[in-house]
């Protein structure tokens, strides 16, 4: 019982199928109150479907979930009363102004007329949207739309917030703005469930991460744990002269045993956790007269984590698909 009160989200064996597609195929989640929890996966992994079940928009085929102690099926209304959702398609009304959007949400949540207006003004200013307050949302940039979307989600501060790919399609600056807002929300005590395709985003913001692929959680833990579970890390070396790679490979192999040739013809890498050993290997290269452009010894990136866990890189799928489509059209 004690775990129930400290867990903000507790999902067991959630399943949702659409015809033949098992969009979510037995997902378990345990999210601590006050934390940011990331659901990380490539296109079509089942992130949105999971979030929609937790936000009471979709009924699970089987399995159960409790959000802040309320069952998402039998106590859906109680769940709706304490969460808010920022969907993958921006959940704002394009045909209204930014200000009208915020007033609309405020009024629907029971905020009085005058107070809803005041609150809209406050949020628009806080989120850098005051100048665009009277513009129709369809004329907003992607970043402005996202910020408005998040503002709409906190007109009344929720205890828990669902964010579905909040920075997809944003430029780096807008992305940083959204990240800052998310950090401020966490600091105020809101629990956040964040879906993302960006490994860096999960690494930057999340306390815990579930990696999902084809509807299943394939790994779970803190960003650090995930990296550790994949392997200790690797030494990456980039040479000045690709011609010297075979020689460099032999030299490194003496110190580090298994050496891997990267797609970049000047780069190689070798699994290695021991800094002393890595330093010796690099020194050995220099001694043999091999010019080094750069070298790093580090924990694997989440990209590598994903590759190791699923056998395919996170971003490969959608790109491969687009390429295929383009080729088809070219033909």
């Amino acid at each position: 019982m004690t775990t129930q009160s400290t867990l903000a989200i507790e999902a067991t064996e959630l399943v949702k199928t659409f015809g033949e597609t098992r969009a979510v195929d037995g997902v378990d989640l345990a999210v601590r109150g006050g934390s940011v929890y990331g659901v990380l996966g490539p296109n079509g992994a089942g992130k949105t479907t999971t979030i929609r079940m937790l936000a009471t928009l979709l009924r699970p085929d089987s399995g159960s979930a409790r959000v802040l102690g309320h069952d998402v099926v039998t106590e859906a209304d109680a769940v709706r009363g304490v969460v808010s959702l920022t969907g993958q398609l921006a959940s704002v009304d394009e045909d209204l102004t930014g200000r009208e959007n915020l007033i609309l949400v405020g009024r629907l949540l029971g905020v009085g007329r005058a107070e809803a207006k005041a609150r809209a003004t406050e949020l628009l200013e806080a989120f850098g949207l005051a100048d665009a307050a009277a513009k129709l949302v369809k004329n907003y940039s992607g970043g402005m739309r996202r910020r408005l979307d998040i503002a709409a989600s906190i007109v009344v501060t929720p205890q828990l917030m669902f964010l579905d790919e909040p920075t997809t399609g944003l430029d780096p600056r807008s992305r940083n703005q959204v990240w800052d807002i998310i950090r401020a929300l966490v600091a105020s005590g809101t629990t956040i469930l964040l879906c993302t395709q960006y490994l860096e985003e999960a690494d930057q913001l999340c306390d815990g991460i579930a990696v999902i692929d084809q509807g299943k959680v394939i790994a779970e833990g803190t960003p650090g744990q995930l990296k550790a579970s994949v392997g200790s890390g690797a030494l990456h070396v980039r040479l000045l002269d690709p011609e010297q790679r075979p020689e460099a490979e032999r030299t490194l192999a003496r110190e580090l045993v298994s050496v891997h040739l990267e797609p970049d013809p000047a780069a190689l890498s070798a699994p290695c956790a021991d800094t002393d050993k890595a330093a010796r290997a690099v020194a050995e290269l220099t001694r043999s007269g091999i010019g080094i452009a750069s070298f790093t010894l580090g924990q694997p990136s989440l990209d590598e984590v994903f590759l190791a866990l699923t056998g395919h890189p996170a971003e490969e799928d959608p790109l491969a698909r687009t390429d295929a489509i383009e080729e088809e059209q070219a033909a």
Partner: protein
Amino acid sequence: MSAEPTTTTPEPLADETAVRKAISATPRPPRASATSAALTFGWRGMLKVKHVPEQLLDVTITPVMFVLMFTYLFGGAIAGSTGEYLQYILPGILVMSVLFTTVYSGVALNTDLTRGVVDRFRSLPIWKPAPLVGSLLGDSVRYLIAGTVIIVLGVILGFRPGAGVGGVIAALALVVVFAFGLSWVFTTLGLLLRSPNAVMNAGFMGIFPLTFLSNVFVDPDTLPAGLEAFVNVNPISILADASRGLMEGNAAASDIVIVLAVAAGLTAVFAPLTTHLYRSKA
């Protein structure tokens, strides 16, 4: 690591403190009542009319064309004189244009569903039918506008309602109430069909023949017997009769009761169906 060029943002993201303050500011108010939620959605509908006035053009220009076309093109042939025909047809055209407008409620709902904002509405702790009831309340204002345009144009062209302004208002009110009931049929369609176009086509495929097989344009006495029987029980005929009666001051109470009953029946069946579909839509 530490040299990330992050925090110099020319685009104004407010200062952190304002964000923090805005976040922490609000205690949760008591939930909005069903009425207040529905009226808020009605307000949203009004705002859309304000921001997307093209929507209103649809519902005003078409009826104007109908009045002009039927009066001057067919009036002489059907009733002997355009003036007499206008007197007969105007309440009917009022019915037709308002009922045609109801199809757009389904189209609008279908369009809404493809937008992310519906997810927000569905995740709010509000009275479940509120978004639908509210939109239809907003649409009713559009029906009123469409109706008013017809009547004003009619009066300009020489239509003289025997029962005066009161009769006209009563007729308009009755038509709008019926339209509110009928629009639930189209919102149901709007949730069942895949695209706004499909809703439009299916909607008009139903409403078009029903309107033409009514007494809106011609006196059913002139029709073959089988057709006449159908025309006489068609609710649209009864509505047209009732509004003609109200405008002339000789409405049959039974007509009004039937119209209201049909509107209530449509609402009783299709409103819960629409609400259910709206909630369960994936």
